């Protein structure tokens, strides 16, 4: 097998073990092991990218194979995988680099770095595997790492609960993926991702089976990528360290849902499941962008914007444009990593203050962070010439061309609103006077090497990556993609954004009094509450699970468990004790007894043979 592929498969896990063991011996070693491993992984991805020549790297290695029992496994690296590899390892490396200062005061660094490397390993496994089973393993590895990292500060109850919630919500989706694997195994006979696409192209799969399987896989994607209705975990996941939010809940893991749909794109197109994808995603985009308008915590605003932008990428796929969805995924990963890391820098500067209303006026103390944050914000808002503009434009044009009314309307609103919430956030953090005395006097100074450099790199990339936009699209799809011509779309979008921008600037800089007056109205208060609580979806899920699952179904199961199963289990104790006492007769500890049994055994064998082979 290709050396680079070997490295990608093995190095993260070896690095994770080493980072923990060496870090326990000497704390700083943990960081260096992680940094070097991250660099090696990124280099390996770059090597694969440079050597790639339009023929996918393809290995079929059955994991276990004897008789008719086969657990398949395989490596398949094509355009899509390479893009995802570059994102996962590149952003992973920058994130580890950034953590040097951000996590610098934490006493548990070995644990942190080994978990991060383990996560990267899971992500790599997901994107280079050829088989749904291998993908599922990688998928679960990431879920485990995400759980462990959200509850990294496990002694905080909120963090521990958030980790648990993330695990349970995503697990609900994962069960459906497992069901899809079983379905495909039984009815189609393969879980090979490439083969599934081929079969779908040739029309050789039963349409109903394919539709159910596709929707089940999409359920998993909903859980992992924070779509409606399984998104509340993503907001609570912000309890973890900000570097974790940047890597896992902003840039990489949450993309895996989009990746799996993109990987099976032909399969999805064949089944009409894309219709569901587009509509669910449009609704999620709307929910995410409106809720982001009213949040207080920096990270929650970014989390809702992540949800909204992932949905925009999903809409791109859902209306049938692989290029639009994947391009937005790539751009989003970069500017969202930038925004989260910049937010991390802000939080670090302000001595771990996360509430945006308690910050303010930071532009004087940290001009570079403010600049990079602004560049990320502009890209997110979709202002030309930043990368976000082009991909968002492509998605919306595709939606207008091929989507239905619902999709079209909601995704456009969501795309427009992004400028409103991100401008609000930037103004709250960087302009005005400090609203908190603690940070008025002293802030942590960000170091050039560990904080400004990674931010600068990301800002640079998000500004200039659009130069190669058509090359990236060409690389993803393998052919030229013509953007649908919608007359006046760009003008409409830019005007809409400008109006929203002016409203937000006016309200938050000039007219805070007016804002307070509007906000104190009862009707506005009600809407504010609904948005602030994410449309009460979390409460709804909690209610359903509490009343239907816990209090009725689980109670019934518990009755059965206590009075039937436990009774049987308890009875086995007496039974096995009785058996034990019976067997114990033979074990006196005297060698004479043993030899007697020995002779008995010999007699049994000889007599048995004579009886069985009587004919001789």
């Amino acid at each position: 097998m290709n050396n680079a592929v070997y490295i990608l498969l093995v190095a993260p896990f070896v690095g994770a073990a080493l980072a923990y063991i060496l870090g326990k011996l000497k704390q700083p070693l943990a960081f260096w092991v992680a940094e070097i491993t991250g660099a090696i992984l990124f280099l390996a991805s770059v090597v694969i990218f440079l050597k790639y020549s339009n023929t996918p790297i393809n290995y079929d290695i059955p994991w276990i194979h004897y008789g008719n029992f086969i657990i398949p496994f395989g490596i398949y690296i094509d355009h899509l995988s390479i893009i995802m590899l570059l994102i996962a390892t590149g952003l992973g490396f920058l994130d580890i680099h950034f953590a040097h200062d951000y996590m610098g005061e934490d006493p548990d660094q070995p644990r942190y770095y080994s978990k991060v490397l383990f996560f990267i390993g899971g992500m790599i496994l997901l994107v280079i595997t050829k088989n749904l089973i291998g993908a599922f393993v990688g998928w679960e590895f990431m879920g485990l790492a995400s759980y462990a990292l959200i509850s990294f500060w496990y002694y905080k109850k909120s963090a521990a609960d958030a980790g648990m919630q993330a695990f349970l919500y995503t697990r609900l989706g994962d069960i459906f993926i497992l069901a899809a694997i079983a379905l495909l195994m039984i009815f189609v006979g393969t879980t090979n991702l490439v083969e599934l696409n081929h079969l779908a192209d040739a029309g050789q799969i039963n349409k109903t089976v394919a539709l159910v399987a596709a929707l089940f896989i999409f359920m998993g994607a909903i859980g992992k990528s924070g779509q409606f209705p399984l998104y509340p975990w993503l907001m609570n996941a912000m309890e973890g360290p900000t570097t974790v939010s940047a890597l896992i809940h902003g840039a990489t893991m949450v993309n895996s849902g989009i990746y799996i749909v993109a990987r099976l794109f032909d399969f999805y197109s064949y089944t009409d499941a894309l219709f569901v994808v587009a509509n669910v995603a449009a609704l999620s985009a709307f929910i995410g962008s409106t809720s982001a308008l009213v949040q207080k915590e920096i990270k929650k605003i970014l989390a809702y914007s992540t949800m909204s932008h992932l949905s925009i990428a999903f809409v791109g796929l859902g209306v049938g444009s692989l290029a639009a969805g994947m391009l937005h995924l790539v751009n989003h990963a970069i500017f969202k990593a930038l925004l989260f890391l910049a937010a991390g820098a802000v939080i670090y500067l302000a001595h771990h203050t996360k509430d945006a209303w308690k910050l303010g006026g930071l532009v004087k103390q940290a001009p570079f962070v403010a600049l990079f944050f602004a560049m990320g914000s502009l890209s997110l808002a979709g202002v030309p010439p930043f990368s976000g503009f082009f991909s968002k434009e492509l998605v919306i044009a595709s939606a207008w061309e091929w989507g239905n009314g619902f999709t079209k309307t909601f995704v456009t609103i969501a795309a427009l609103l992004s400028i409103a919430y991100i401008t609000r956030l930037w103004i709250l953090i960087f302009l005005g006077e400090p609203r908190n005395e603690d940070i008025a006097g002293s802030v942590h100074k960000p170091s050039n090497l560990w904080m400004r450099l990674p931010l600068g790199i990301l800002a640079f990339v998000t500004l200039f990556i659009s130069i190669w936009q058509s090359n990236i699209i060409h690389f993803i799809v393998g052919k030229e993609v013509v953007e649908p011509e919608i007359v006046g779309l760009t003008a409409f979008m830019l005007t809409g954004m400008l109006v929203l921008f002016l409203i937000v600037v006016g309200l938050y800089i000039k007219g805070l009094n007016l804002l307070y007056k509007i906000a104190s109205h009862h009707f506005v208060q009600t809407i504010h509450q609904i948005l602030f609580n994410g449309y009460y979806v979390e409460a709804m899920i909690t209610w359903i699970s509490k009343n239907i699952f816990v209090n009725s179904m689980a109670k019934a199961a518990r009755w059965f468990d206590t009075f039937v199963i436990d009774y049987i289990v308890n009875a086995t104790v007496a039974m096995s004790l009785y058996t034990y006492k019976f067997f114990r007769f033979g074990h006196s500890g005297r060698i004479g007894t043993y030899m007697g049994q020995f002779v008995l055994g010999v007699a049994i064998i000889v007599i048995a043979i004579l009886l069985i082979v009587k004919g001789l």
Partner: protein
Amino acid sequence: MSFIILIAAGLIVPIFYRNNIFIAKMIALIAFIVAAYFIYQGESLNSVFPYFVLDKATMLIEFALLATLAAVSLSLTGFERPLIAQMLFLAGVSLGLLETNNFFLFIVLFEVVAIISYILVANIRNFFNAEGAIKAFIAGAVASGIILLGFALFSFTTDSFNYAHMNINGKFPLIAVAIMLAGIFYKLTVVPMHGWAADAYSQVNHAAAAILSGVIKSVVLVATFKAFYKFMIAYPVATVLIFSFFAVITMTLANFMALFQKRVSKILAYSSIAHSGYALIPFAAAASVYSYAGILYYAIAYIFMQTSVFLILNDFRREAGVKYLQDLKGLGKRAPLHSLFFTIQIFSLAGIPLLAGFLAKAVAFYAGVDAGLWPIVLIAALNSALAVAYYAWIIKHLYFDEAKCNSTIKMSAGSLIGQLILLAGTIYFGIVAADVINSTVTF
């Protein structure tokens, strides 16, 4: 070639081990590595002596054997030093036993292995050790007598001792084989020839018990399968009935006995007997093409995990005076490394997926199903579930109970390297199944 190197090293090592154990360990280690290299080159006993054949499957179990013995040699200290030389002799003889294709040599080498095992247990330090050693010796002597009786009978009726050309027709060869099998069952600790093992494994020095229960049993398992394969194919009904019967009673009795033991070593001894029961399933399924894969996988997985648990128990006994289950309480905190290795290997014994013990059971049971013995496999599966009870009980004591004292236990470097070797084996063969299964295709 590798045989000569190992025996020569075994003769040199005693000069050093009293004064400088480090040199002795290094010599042993180098000998094991060089021997493995020659095996890899295809120059084991077969390049010097006739009657020996080296194929891919044999090579694989030999590598596992040499790695395990190297791991054991590295972790020996104190009064266990003389065992280093025994490891080398045992390695040499075991290579012969695994490679031979001659029934006469099989019997002779089997006896040599038995004699080495008596010397191993003869490292007596207290009354307890002595009792175990005497039991092992007397049982072994009786078994040797029975094997030789069977072999004498067999030698009258056959013209050739070559596995392929042995005479298997007629009443006498069959009775002879039955008698010999009974003798070999003693070494494999099949019920009802197991009584000595339950006592001896738990009473002799744990390092010696690791060799007896882990290494020697695995080697004998594979060698016996090869030696008796022709008979098992020729008399399918008798094979299925006899081996199934012994498999079922062995695992059932051993698991129930293990459930209520208080002494850790005794639990592990009975668990070892139970594993013999599982390992008999591929014997019963000899008609299946997967039977040899089942045996080989079981032997390779078992050699790593069983040896490892007894070696750690040895460390526990030496450092913390562990004898009973309650002595294990809180060791998870006091000796984190030991406990980690112990836990993983015990999980492997219990058959938790992604560890060698699971795949070994899966392949062995698959052979059983393939031969149509699914009732036996069902009983075996139920038994493995039962076995989890006492394995989990050990883990519970390690991690979920409070310790009586707080002194920590450090792991010596030799022991650590040894355990890492064994752990690598357990994990590698728990994930990569293709090596073993593909190697048995030509059998």
